[in-house]
């Protein structure tokens, strides 16, 4: 072909429509904000029952995960993410969605090779690299403390 690949790539970029950033950022802020507010309401209500903050946070996390699991099962969570983008992907509810969705999808392939092998296809990298980066940061913190820098 006479058009070279670099020029074609630039041309394709030019003719491909892209998402409008500002409305997306506002939607993400709204959805993410609403999810976090619901979480805060849960924590406050639980703490009002005389539960300690750490325990109340754990319960809040559980409630949000359960809500996301149910909404994924009812096919509502994908609609929320479609509207809210990262606002719905980043909170714990998005993580729960990424675990439940493959579990539902691959159920037909069996308990072991279906659900067992595929459940973490999306969340797996987050878990692996999340643990790895926490470990690296832990080592850095340990070294800095040992030398009395922090």
């Amino acid at each position, binding site marked *: 072909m006479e*058009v070279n690949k670099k020029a074609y790539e630039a041309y394709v970029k030019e*003719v491909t429509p892209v998402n409008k950033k500002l409305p997306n950022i506002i939607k993400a802020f709204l959805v993410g904000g609403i999810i976090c507010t619901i979480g805060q309401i849960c924590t406050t209500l639980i703490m009002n029952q005389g539960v300690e903050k750490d325990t109340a946070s754990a319960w809040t996390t559980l409630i949000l995960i359960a809500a996301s699991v149910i909404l994924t099962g009812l096919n509502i969570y994908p609609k929320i993410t479609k509207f809210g983008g990262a606002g719905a992907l980043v909170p714990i509810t998005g993580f729960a969605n990424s675990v439940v969705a493959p579990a539902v999808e691959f159920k037909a392939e069996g308990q072991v090779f279906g659900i067992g092998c595929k459940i973490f296809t999306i969340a797996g990298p987050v878990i692996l690299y999340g643990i790895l980066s926490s470990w690296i940061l832990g080592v850095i913190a340990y070294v800095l403390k040992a030398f009395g820098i922090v």
Partner: protein
Amino acid sequence: MQVGKASIKFEEPPVIESMASIVGKKEGEGPLGKLFDVVEQDDMFGADTWEKAESALQKQTADLAIEKGDVRKKDIRYLFAGDLLGQLIATSFGTVDLEIPLFGLFGACSTMGEALNLGSMTVAAGYADKVMAMASSHFATAEKQFRFPLGYGNQRPFSSSWTVTGCGAVILTKHRKEGIAAITGITTGRMVDMGIKDSMNMGAAMAPAAFHTIQQNFDDFNIDENYYDKIITGDLGRVGRTILLDFMRNKGHDLENIHTDCGIEIFDPDSQDTHSGGSGCGCAASTLCSYILPKIKDGTWKRVLFVPTGALLSTVSFNEGETIPSIAHGVMIEHIEN
């Protein structure tokens, strides 16, 4: 007769004597909704897995084409069929009960073009009196294989397409005076790779392949766009169409008014949220058998160049950072004067 570099002109053009199209609910709600033979409201097609659903879709469509054409199953000598799934499981499981000798084809979304190319060659050469060409795709099986589980929430870019749940089947028969339409020639595509890596912009990957095949068809037959009433690509979508028209314009061909794309015709992007358009083998196949062939039959269009386009990527090649090589097969379909 061999023509030019990559084409065949049939002295005795094979004739399409029957066609059938079955689609899912969403396709039924689209602009072509009323034209399909059957709109199945149950996307599972009565099966318990998505893959079995697609197989059932193929079986039903093949049966319907046989029934509509009033053809005996045993008279169909070969079946040329394919789908998008690994190892062609929708086709291999779906066509067991047909008991017709099978050539399973993979040309990604260009499969209907490949099936028509091979089917018409087989019939024209006298190796079969009747053959069937068929291709299917299913939104859920394709999403599962190529993208994300259905329940996973994510945002799709505007350049992405929506895999059609649908199947189209035609029965080709040796040359005669009556039928739905005649296949007068073919131009077989070759691999074209312009270095596009974005699997969410397959229109951009496939447009150069469509351009190449259309240009080859013009060169081989020594014709241009004025020969055709319509040039219809498979699933370039809106982004791909823009690119194809630009490429053709640079070569001095204005396709603005005679080009359309099955992916653009099958969905309404504003009300159906399908972004760039429909895609999948079933997109070109079901549009051919519901919208294009009837228009050729009634003479609205006398000559059509049907060009299904395929992006030949896999999840492995994509993850390994490879580009998306593409292909497009041209089929010259013409009106039969009675």
